[in-house]
């Protein structure tokens, strides 16, 4: 059996904002074995990115605050790490690709400035010379199939296209040879034609290095193609997890079913059905199951109690009272 790489238990994160406290993550559980590729899906605003940033301890604090739970990487709790361990974690442990490459590159520094710093601090112990660092930067850019890497190092982000910027972010994330890669909707902000290219590239690189991956997305097609297991997230909680094939074949949670229906099918009527209503207000989240105001099968118990996880197969778990008996 593969070794457990990451284990998040009962993670709580809140945001203190003007007018109150947003309880954004409300007991998130997630785990991942070495070499595994896991998908994390859910609507915009359900806490996927917050979960990812919590794992790296890079949430902007304030306003964010981690109020409970643990994130184990191997045996170490990331939430208890000191500065030195954290630096170790960032340089070799986990790296992340952000959703919007325009926002995630510093606009007033050249690509070279930023990429060489990334390489320099992920290889501190090797004491590379400036020229070696630059050589690595060039080869990192060639690895992501960017033409004329030497010139790109001199460029500022605004001189490059969105696709090129995201390739640079991928190069940065992979430069540190991390054990775990978190890709947070890596293609959402790109043109459709570029999306496929970038995904293919990312897939190839991850495959080559056999990096464990958490892929955050709301494209179910990508999840199906890429991942072995899927977590479905709703309003700061995991509502269902299952092996990818099983989830697509027989989704249990009403929310998961809704998500599947929301995908427009080329052969179908062409109109997405979707789920009525919106993601709840985090200031005053619904009691009990957070999905109950939108759930077509809502029962009395859903309004009062939070559903625990019911096991529905070897690795299939669902947090819904409908499956209490099974």
């Amino acid at each position, binding site marked *: 059996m593969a070794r457990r790489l990451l284990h998040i238990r009962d993670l709580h994160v809140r945001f203190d904002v003007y007018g109150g406290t947003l309880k954004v993550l409300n007991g998130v559980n997630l785990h991942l074995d070495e070499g595994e590729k896991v998908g994390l899906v859910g609507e915009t605003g359900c806490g996927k990115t917050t979960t990812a940033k919590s794992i790296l301890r*890079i949430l*902007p604090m304030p306003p964010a605050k981690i109020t409970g739970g643990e994130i184990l990487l191997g045996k170490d709790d990331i939430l208890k790490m000191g500065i030195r361990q954290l*630096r170790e974690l960032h340089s070799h442990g*986990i790296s992340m690709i952000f959703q919007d490459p325009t926002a*995630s590159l*510093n*606009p*007033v520094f050249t690509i070279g400035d930023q990429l060489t*710093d990334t390489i320099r601090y992920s290889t501190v112990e090797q004491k590379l010379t400036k020229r070696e660092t630059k050589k690595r930067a060039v080869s990192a850019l060639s690895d992501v199939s960017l033409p004329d890497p030497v010139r790109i190092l001199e460029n*500022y982000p605004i001189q490059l296209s969105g696709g090129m910027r995201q390739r640079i972010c991928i190069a940065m994330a992979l430069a540190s040879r991390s054990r775990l890669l978190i890709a947070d909707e890596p293609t959402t902000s790109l043109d459709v034609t570029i999306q496929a290219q970038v995904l293919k590239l990312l897939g190839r690189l991850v495959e080559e290095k056999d990096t464990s991956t958490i892929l955050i997305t709301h494209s179910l097609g990508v999840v199906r193609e890429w991942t072995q297991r899927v977590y479905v997230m709703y309003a700061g909680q995991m509502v269902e997890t299952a092996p990818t094939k099983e989830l697509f074949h027989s989704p249990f949670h009403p929310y998961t079913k809704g998500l599947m229906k929301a995908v427009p099918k080329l052969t179908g009527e062409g109109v997405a059905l979707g789920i009525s209503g919106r993601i709840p207000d985090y200031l005053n989240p619904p009691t009990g199951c957070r999905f109950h105001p939108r759930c077509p099968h809502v029962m009395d118990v859903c309004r009062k109690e939070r559903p625990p996880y019911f096991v529905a197969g070897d690795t299939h778990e669902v947090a819904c009272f409908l499956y209490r008996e099974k």
Partner: protein
Amino acid sequence: MHFIKFLARRIGHSVFVILGLSILVFLIARVMPGDPARMALGPRAPEAVVQRFREELHLDKPIYVQYYYWLRGAVQGDFGMSLFTKRNVAHDVKEFLPATLELMVCTGIIFTVFGILLGVASARYANKWPDNVVRVFSYLGVCTPAYVFGILFLLLFGYVFNLLPTIGRLSPELEYPAHATGFITIDSIIAGDFRAFWDGLKHLIMPSVALALGPMAQEARITRSSMTENLQRDFIALERSQAIPERRIMTRYLMRISIIPTVSVLGLDFASQLGWAFLVELIFNWPGLSRYGINVMLHKDLNAIVAVIMIIGLVFLVVNIVVDIIVAGLDPRIRLGAERSK
């Protein structure tokens, strides 16, 4: 190469701005009610003399002819005669401008350094007590006019504690150092007269701090908000996720992008001092251009009014060009954006 083009274009624009300003100011000064020749000579002067004086000043000619005469003189540095001091306006400006410039530079240094420092401290300790202290101070600073601070300082440090000199640029028992730049602090260093330097500096403290507090508060607020805003951006999260030390992120990556709005406002605040300084110059009896400007306005001294406003306009333009150059140097989006649009 790009830089020279950029500079040439900016200066080219400025020439038109300054011409436009001169026409506007010239017109406004002429349509103001009252007869400058009569005011200069007094109510008892015979009408014939006043009439001759009007002709001497070309006041009897159409306004565009007057403007032509004025412009011809102005490009040669001759702004005509002051009706109030009865001296050449250029001579007056040369005498009063350095005092104000010295005050402005000193004020500018104070509010730049301390404004940014306070802003950074405020952002660093956001929502903790240092931040709250700075924020309260900022509100006070922004909403209190400089002359109120001036009067308070005068009472407190001038009379109650008697720590600092209250009027003028130099104590009467000291001699002015040889005139090189017109800045007492610099001239005294050139002359090697350190007593005069120290004395000049002491005279500068109260008026420049009084002037600096408002802009300093402004700078601190802008720096704080720009830093706290950028701190939540994804590129900071990305830099943190790549093991770049926090200190380096703060001093290098966060600083350069956050300082851009502050620099833009710095320039404006700096140039505005020239116009706003008059009450403070009045309180501290500072022989500067702002005070001179108000005096000549009260006397409807046409040539001097136009000259003072033109000087203020010119300083604004120069400062703005300098600010644009600095901002373009800091921000490639502006630099490259300008190149691309060409």
